[in-house]
């Protein structure tokens, strides 16, 4: 029984992450810092739930940007990309990296969501099913777009700063839809009311993954 190669790439990612725990620690500190800033800036004011929903996704977006930008940069820095290129096909690398990013983003956004609901009293979610579906689908979409953009960034000369610039226009339809669905979850809407938004989130991820699988080869084997 041979384990599928994308899964092996995924395991390698997890193993090399747990060797240093750099990304995890940095991400955790980033999230804590941002949430603290949000709490301090809110103070004792009562803030409308629409704004709170938007801020949740601002925190998730920028945490994802700081966490995922290094997906491929580390390979280039350590000089391991050549080995990876020799060992397996571009598609396998993409799927493995994408899976790792999905797991990372989901863990991160679930943590953010829990902490956010715990810290901010005004943010009361009345429809948990909509809320968690949004977090999961939004996380997958974020990971899908970030993986291919991180591959582009790793090949460009300027590594870090360009990432949010490239990602923002691509991710905006996803973020706007996520914010809308989060507002619905706070309003306590029925699951069917948010169904249209979920359709958009799913189709965004599908389109993004399909396009990435096709073009990743050109970036990777350059």
């Amino acid at each position, binding site marked *: 029984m041979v384990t599928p190669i994308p899964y092996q790439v995924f395991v390698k990612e997890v193993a090399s992450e747990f060797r240093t725990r750099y990304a995890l620690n940095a991400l955790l500190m980033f999230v804590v810092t941002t949430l603290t800033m949000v709490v301090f800036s809110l103070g004792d004011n009562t803030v409308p739930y629409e704004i709170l929903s938007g801020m949740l996704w601002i925190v998730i977006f920028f945490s994802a940007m700081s966490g995922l930008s290094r997906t491929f940069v580390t390979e280039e820095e350590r000089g391991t990309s050549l080995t990876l290129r020799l060992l397996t096909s571009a598609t396998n690398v993409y799927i493995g990296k994408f899976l790792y990013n999905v797991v990372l983003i989901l863990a991160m956004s679930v943590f953010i969501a829990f902490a956010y609901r715990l810290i901010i009293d005004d943010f009361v979610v009345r429809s948990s099913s909509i809320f968690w579906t949004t977090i999961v689908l939004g996380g997958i979409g974020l990971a899908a*777009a970030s993986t*291919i*953009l991180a591959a*582009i960034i790793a*090949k*460009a*000369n*300027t590594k870090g700063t*360009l990432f949010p*610039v*490239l990602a*923002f*226009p*691509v991710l*905006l*339809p996803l973020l*706007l839809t996520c914010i*809308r669905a989060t507002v619905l979850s706070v309003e306590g809407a029925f699951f069917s009311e948010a169904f*249209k*938004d979920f359709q*958009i989130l799913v189709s*965004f991820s599908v*389109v*993004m993954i399909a*396009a*990435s699988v*096709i*073009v990743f080869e*050109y*970036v990777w084997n*350059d």
Partner: protein
Amino acid sequence: MKTALKSLLVLWLTAVIIAGIAVPMVKSPSGPLEFPVIPGLEEKARNIFFHVPMAWTSVLAFFMALYSGVRYLRSKDQDHDLRSVSAAGLGMMFCILATVTGSVWAKFNWGSFWNWDPRETSIFILLLIYGAYFVLRSAVEDEEKRATLSAVYSIIAGVTVPFFVFVMPRIMSGLHPGSLGDEQGSGPVVQMNMAPNMLVLFFASLAGFTLLYLWMLSLRVRTARLEAVTNTIE
């Protein structure tokens, strides 16, 4: 032959611009040289002859840049990259023009230059995509790498364009003619059942702007080729 076509295009667009501005709008039109008044838009409806073709051209330019990008990835022929970047540059110009004309129109129809209507949001994102595309290009020194990365980025950005142009304005309510929140008045403009003579002028303008864009594109591509040759000589 080519000169004749180009002079014809200049005359054509001049006629379109004059007709778009000067043909009077009356309550009950009595001939092809009078437009009917559209309630809620009135004289401001004239913007459709200029703003819509510009927005159309900027989207067309984006997809041409995308198409040339794909051609580049398949052939690794630098000429396709020249076509891609020329199309994107023109697209950005038309996008800015569409944003400005739309914004001025919004000031007189809605009372403010910018209020994040779904259409305004989507054209703003198109501007951001063009901006990010050129920032990415300026960040990469190596010619081949630059062409590959920008082609890939235009593909990734390109697959999200339908979400903005077609999906978002239809699920979010907005005030732009043709969107869900706009129930009276301006509907006929977007549903293409405006007066026949307006329709003729509209499509004449659309064709004129498209041809103008293609002409400018061929000029830019030729200049870019010459620049590439001079660079290699130096």
